């Protein structure tokens, strides 16, 4: 870990300006991912702007019947919130499928969206990795890749976005609300928040320099049955091989997003329109153009089978 300076911001706009105005500055909230990466010098911020005093830890109902989740609401608090459990159960189920109780007590809503990939080559500074060191190459593409992405990849990166919460937020059409360094605000639909690796895999999302997430807004509840099925190699404390976040209606229609398969939560609206035809049709469409490796091609079969199980449960 490199030496760094530290300040505690008093307002969102001040925090955004503080990070924007300084080369190598970063926000820190729960620190559950950033500190680990700093110890390995995968992240080496020169300055940390701590946002924990910003009073962004409330969950409030919005005028349209939805919820506004403060950026600093912990995973534990969000998953346990009565209205989330009742009306957005997919979100509660996704959150408790991730990490451990201790980590969820520290991890924040905004920080969780910014969780970086768990690609083992990203974590080993001896290995080439375009995400860690731009244009250094990708050791994963022809390496040990059974955990890695199958769709939306590029020849520069096959990393996944590793989280669970964001998969549920994607299926809920959540909107990320931010403050810019000049004090203005912006909203980013979850669909556009994470980006595909393309030629610049070192960029995980579409936030600008210094742009601070202040909240995540959930639209009014959409009803339906909520599912989050996370498939992994052990039953807890592991990242998804494939996860399925789904909201299914009695008429067979619904929404579905996949985790563990791409650089972002993977939801293809044209594919979910095929839900009444079954999992095979949805997955064929959603994974059109996928380019899996020999190690991870099973994920497409697994996505179909996991979704089929969810659909069967909805019907039973």
């Amino acid at each position, binding site marked *: 870990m490199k030496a760094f300076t530290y300040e505690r911001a008093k307002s969102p706009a001040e925090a955004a300006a503080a990070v924007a105005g300084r080369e190598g500055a970063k926000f820190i909230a729960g620190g559950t991912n950033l500190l680990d990466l700093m110890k390995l010098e995968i992240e080496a911020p020169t300055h940390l702007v701590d946002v924990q005093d910003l009073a962004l830890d409330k969950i409030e109902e919005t005028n349209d019947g939805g919820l506004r989740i403060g950026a600093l609401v912990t995973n534990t608090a969000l998953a346990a919130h009565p209205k989330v459990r009742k009306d957005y159960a997919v979100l509660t189920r996704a959150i408790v499928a991730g990490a451990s109780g201790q980590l969820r007590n520290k991890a924040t809503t905004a920080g969780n969206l910014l969780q970086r990939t768990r690609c083992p080559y990203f*974590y080993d500074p001896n290995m080439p990795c375009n995400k860690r060191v731009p244009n250094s190459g990708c050791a994963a593409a022809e390496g*040990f890749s059974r955990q890695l992405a199958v769709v939306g990849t590029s020849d520069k990166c096959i990393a996944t976005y590793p989280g669970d919460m964001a998969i549920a937020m994607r299926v809920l059409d959540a909107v990320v609300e931010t403050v810019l360094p000049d004090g203005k605000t912006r909203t980013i639909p979850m669909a556009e928040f994470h980006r595909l690796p393309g030629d610049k895999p070192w960029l995980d999302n579409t936030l600008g320099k210094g742009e601070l997430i202040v909240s995540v807004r959930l639209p009014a509840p959409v009803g339906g049955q909520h599912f989050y099925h996370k498939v992994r190699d052990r039953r807890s404390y592991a990242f998804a091989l494939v996860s399925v976040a789904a909201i299914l209606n009695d008429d067979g229609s619904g929404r579905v997003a996949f985790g563990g398969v791409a650089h972002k939560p993977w939801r293809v609206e044209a594919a979910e329109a095929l839900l009444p035809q079954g999992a*095979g049709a949805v997955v064929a469409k959603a994974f059109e153009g996928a380019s899996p490796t020999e190690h991870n091609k099973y994920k497409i079969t697994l996505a179909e*089978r996991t979704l*089929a199980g969810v659909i*069967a449960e909805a019907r039973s």
Partner: protein
Amino acid sequence: MKFDAPAGKNLFDNARIVGKSTRRIDGPLKVTGAAPYAYERHDVIPNQAYGWIVGAGIAKGRITAMDTSDAEAAPGVIAVLAAPKMQPVGSSPFNYAPLFGGSDVTHYHQAIACVVAETYEEARAAAALIRTRYDRGEGTFDLKAKKSTAPMSGEPKTRGDFDAAFASAPVTVDETYSTPGESHMSMEPHATIASWQGDQLTLWTSNQMIAWSKDALAAILGLDAANIRLDSPYLGGGFGGKLWVRADAVLAALASKETGRAVKIVMQRPLIANNTTHRQATIQRVRLGAEKSGKITALGHENWSYNVPSAGDGETATAQTPVLYAGDNRYVAEYCARLDLPEGNAMRAPGEAPGHLALEVAMDELAEKLGMDPIALREVNEPGKTVPGQPDKQFSERNLVRCMKEGAELFGWSKRNAKPGLVRDGRYLVGMGMAAGFRGSPTMKSAARVKLAANGHVTVETDMTDIGTGSYTIIAQTAAETMGVPLDHVTVELGDSAYPASAGSGGQWGAASSTAGVYAACVALRRKIGEALGFDGDAATFADGKIVAGDKTHALGDAGAMSAEDAIEFGKFQRDYNIGTYAAHFCEVAVDAYTGETHIRRMLSVCDAGRILNPLSARSQVIGAMTMSVGMALSEELAVDPRFGFFVNHDLAGYEVAVHADVPHQDVVFLDTPDPAISPIKAKGVGELGICGPGAAIANAIYNATGIRVRDYPLTLDKYLDRLPALV
């Protein structure tokens, strides 16, 4: 004390303390954080500096340049030890791969530098400033590719005419199984604090085998062993990974010498998999030929594994095969390739643990082909009183059939549907599996000193280690029983090389050997007391803090403070016996018919392991091993990247050991079968028995649930997803 013949009736047959479930005497220290682990021994020496290990970024080749100038100039840095500027340290019979020094790199994350600084953070930050250039060499990293040219290790164990018997057998199994490399991944990483006083070197460390490691360190550093002291009273797990001196200890000693300061070093978690030792991968071919009655006529087991180019055996996965089943015609052979991967060395039940994953699945496959119950098949092939092919070597105690039968009863084995894939519980396919287990029960010379205070308090000193196993408690029980005092009148001091040399913790020999050594020392003390007070210590009764000798009664402390030291030495007669431990393991799984996820529902192990010294801690040992078996069967794998020659998933996020949610219900039953051939106490260890077989029981249960046989461990769902029932 010489143990020259099987034990007769003795005080342990009427024991009051040995054999009774006893809470760990070190438990309160452990749960309150008062038992310091090596890296936490802040009080043993002042002014400790912090070392940070730099691991090589290549698997094979040479360091062409190392620039340490920025690191040396970094804040807080006291010294930088750069391997290219130093002579390679020596080696010992216990180390194959080089530990430090010189420019050659023979495995990934080999220690190539050590930064010593005032704080941990400063050392870590400075280490990142070292710039190293390499000339990367070509290496060989793929066992499969080297299998066909791997030479045989030693001679094959043959009997009769295997080829003819296998060719003519009416029912045969011929399958190949593979197991991956595995990492010990103890909760406590390897860690050492080193300090020199003149030419005397003291290491406060985390080590399973104090006497071995003292000698090894002397050889590695070119010192007189008499000038080295190791102290390792508490360990947070070892599993064989801490049988040896590793880079943390070597670098702490070198760095302390260089700086004149005490230096503490912990092996960083991401380095452990590649820097230290691991259980090597295996490829195993098992051929079984049987008559229709189930009687095995041909038993073939060949195993291909590897070690580093310079030395070392492979993972000897055929170890159990010559002993476990009868069979007149045999072919058992080991092959060892030479790969440029990190050093392979002992991990919990080396050989047997992966060996059962092949043999015991092959037995399940044979049972199905024969249409026999797997337990009945094993019963048919139970050897007689002697090891097959070795009429002079009798089994000292062998109750495998009893284990299987009692286990079947307890587990509800009769409810298993022998036809696979038919039991459904909602979305789950449910199945049961079983496997037999065998692990040898070796013994090693073990010494102890027992001190008696005038108030009758007893203190035991031995360099035996407690790696989380419960050694403190079984030693206290043994001393309390022999000296006739309550448990809380005994203090146990372990892990210091200043104490008499014990058997140490390894190979499942620690419990049996070290308690026998403590018994020997107690007997010597009893005689000494008898000499002082004028009675025969062997004939007197020591109980309730008193000594009854003839018509006289003495308090234990009447003869005043004194001490005695002795060792148990195991006689050649033990070679006339096969002394082993046996188990029957059962498992029920539910496999998600959609996703292939395996959920273990319950496990049972019935163990035949001699007298059980402390059923409570023995149970903990076995459930720990059963849990490790879950990891072995389902998720643990050191993934080799053959381009770079390293284990890619080198941390606890990537190397997935079993977690609580994986293991919902476990039962352990001990038959309690005192074995007079092993020691005066007739007790055996169980730490490794519990990992010999449960993984195969899991694999067999998955087959019973799904009808899908996967022979490539770990049994991750990607390997059978396409064979699950079709979606409707």
